[in-house]
């Protein structure tokens, strides 16, 4: 399933739309990807797998969710990426890329981060592999995600605030690309999702594909068969592609990419704001950050500011391979709004004893709303845990009346 798009084009999507100064580095990276990742040269993949096991804690379990199964009258299984070191699937990719940078002889790592999950994973991987690391993060996100900023610094990474634009993920990616263009000869850019120029979308997918590789095997052991549907939240799409990759060829398995519906799917063209991050469901084809893909943009082609209660889904673009799979009707692009995600957050916390990331909660929101259409066996990717989101959850829950939520009075004044 992974080799069919070896040229970096997913139909019309993908490609390499980057400044000329970066092209030689992209070519070098493509060569390294083909040799080390695809062909396991010098035992790269063996070392990667071994480090994922010992440092990362793989394999993560596939767990039968008893109370959700009871609630929905079907078998619900959870792929527990929240149990990976760092508390999210992000380490799969960060460790793979930092290790690859070492194999390539690079001496410095840069990365962007939105909510801070990719930044913290990259900082951990860089410390683990002894590589100097600088993380670019929007100033607004820095203020929203203080604990993650400190985690990155604890691991020895520098966190550089990005003050351009509205100071979120989109600007952080642009700024990291500028750093890379300046220091391209000794620096590797660890991109955080299945986005950007080829080979990033394919390479990040391959590092994340371990999620569905394990889940497929674990589920067969437990049930003797395949799931009827797989649900994963989708922002840029790295946990999504990781959860889908090994099921794409199984035509009986329905694949659901659950995007952030935000407050509404309506777009405010005048203000350049889309109060959602549903680029797969509502975006138009265009070129951003190195790839042709589906984008939230105005009719002129200017990129919109996206919005979601979960910072990790807050991005105006999406991986080009997902865009293609949606056009091919292989992946269903669906969405859940902020309310549905918050309710699902509380429900999973109460019923299963798992506090999910707000990103992940979107997938459970979809399960709640559409379980009848999802078949007998449903696999949900628990892409990350929700400790990082508690401040936001308290703030947002106070504004709403959520049945499954605890009394918020006890939390007044924050945690």
């Amino acid at each position, binding site marked *: 399933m992974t080799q069919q798009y070896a040229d970096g084009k997913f139909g019309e999507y993908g490609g390499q739309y980057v400044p000329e100064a970066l092209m030689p580095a992209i070519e070098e990276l493509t060569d390294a990807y083909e040799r080390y990742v695809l062909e396991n040269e010098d035992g790269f993949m063996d070392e990667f797998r071994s480090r994922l096991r010992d440092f990362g804690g793989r394999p993560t379990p596939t767990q039968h969710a008893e109370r959700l199964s009871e609630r929905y009258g079907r078998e619900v299984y959870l792929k527990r990426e929240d149990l990976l070191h760092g508390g999210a699937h992000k380490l799969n990719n960060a460790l793979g890329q930092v290790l690859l940078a070492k194999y390539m002889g690079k001496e410095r790592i840069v990365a962007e981060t939105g909510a801070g999950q990719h930044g913290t994973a990259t900082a951990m991987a860089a410390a683990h592999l002894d590589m100097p690391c600088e993380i670019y993060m929007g100033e607004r996100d820095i203020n929203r995600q203080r604990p993650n900023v400190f985690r990155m610094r604890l691991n020895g990474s520098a966190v550089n605030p990005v003050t351009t634009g509205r100071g979120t993920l989109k600007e952080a990616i642009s700024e990291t690309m500028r750093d890379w263009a300046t220091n391209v000869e000794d620096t590797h850019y660890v991109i955080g999702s299945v986005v950007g120029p080829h080979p990033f979308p394919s390479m990040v997918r391959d590092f994340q594909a371990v999620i569905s590789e394990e889940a497929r095997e674990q589920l067969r052991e437990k049930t003797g068969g395949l799931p009827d549907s797989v649900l994963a939240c989708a922002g840029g799409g790295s946990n999504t592609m990781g959860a889908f990759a090994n099921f794409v060829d199984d035509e009986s398995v329905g694949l659901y990419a659950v995007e952030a519906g935000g407050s509404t799917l309506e777009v405010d063209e005048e203000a350049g704001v889309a109060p959602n991050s549903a680029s797969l469901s509502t975006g138009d084809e*265009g070129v951003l950050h190195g790839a042709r893909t589906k984008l939230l943009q105005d009719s002129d082609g200017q990129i919109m500011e996206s919005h979601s209660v979960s910072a990790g889904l807050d991005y105006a673009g999406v991986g080009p391979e997902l865009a293609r799979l949606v056009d091919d009707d292989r992946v269903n692009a669906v969405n859940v709004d902020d309310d549905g995600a918050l309710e699902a957050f509380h429900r999973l916390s109460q019923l299963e004893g798992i506090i999910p990331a707000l990103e992940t909660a979107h997938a459970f929101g979809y399960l709640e709303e559409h379980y009848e259409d999802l078949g007998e066996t449903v696999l949900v990717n628990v892409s990350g845990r929700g400790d990082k989101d508690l401040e936001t959850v308290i703030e947002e829950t106070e504004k709403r009346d959520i049945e499954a939520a605890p009394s918020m009075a006890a939390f007044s004044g924050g945690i």
Partner: protein
Amino acid sequence: MGDEGSEMSGESGSDPVRNPDLEAAFADGPAFVPYLAAGDPDYESSLEYVEALERGGADVIELGLPFSEPIAEGPTIQSAVVRSLEGGMTPERFFEFVEDLDVDVPLVCMTYYNLIYQYGSEQGPRPFVERAAEVGLSGFVVPDLPAEEADPLREACDEFGLDLVFIVAPTTRGDRLERIMSQVSGYVYVQARLGVTGAQEDVSGQTEESLDRLADYDVPKAVGFGIKTGEHAERIVAGGADGIIVGSALVDIVAEGAKAGEPAETVAGRLEEKARELKQGALRGYEQRVPQAERT
């Protein structure tokens, strides 16, 4: 232009169509190619600023059509992009801007590919290029469009007789250089240093190496990225460049004027003066390289 005896390399059968305007702008002496973001900080002042550049000696003017995610730009031009977008600049307004400009020198549109791709009723670059030709633009520079992805735009440019300028970076060598040079027309934009746009205090040693690699190609070489003073311009032209591209040092003047709330006329005067300094520097550099007496 160019070294004597230089020969056409990459003589494939399908040379790009060349726009006579840009070729002519480099024909006698070094070309001074200033850049400003159109509509920075507002439409009317920006018209005056661009016209001031011509009075100051511009041979070609690069006009930026601002895109919300300018990944190749440093802080100076990023700020210009923000000011221009906030001032209401759009692709359609940009074309009107070009029509409203009272200048004779050729104009090159510098923008990012998504704006070119989205324009008009059909997706793809053709409607944008058609409209650009209609308003009298001479060519394009598209910093996020490497040669690998440029075929559709190159075809549209050939159809409407516009030039497509490519950037050659200090890291561009071998096959990549060949590929770019077989698609470029107008002039080649020699990126003087790695990184993003922005005025610098000195001239990069990477420039000379880049010019050496390009010496055998019969396309004018204009050097940009980091040129700030007449002295920089002089050294770069003396070192073999056929032209200099200056953006951030001029945008800085616009930014200061906008910040201080100065009248457009005052700012335009300062731009004209700066343009003259840069042009004079380029001419001095050319005199060192090709003394008057030896010119044919």
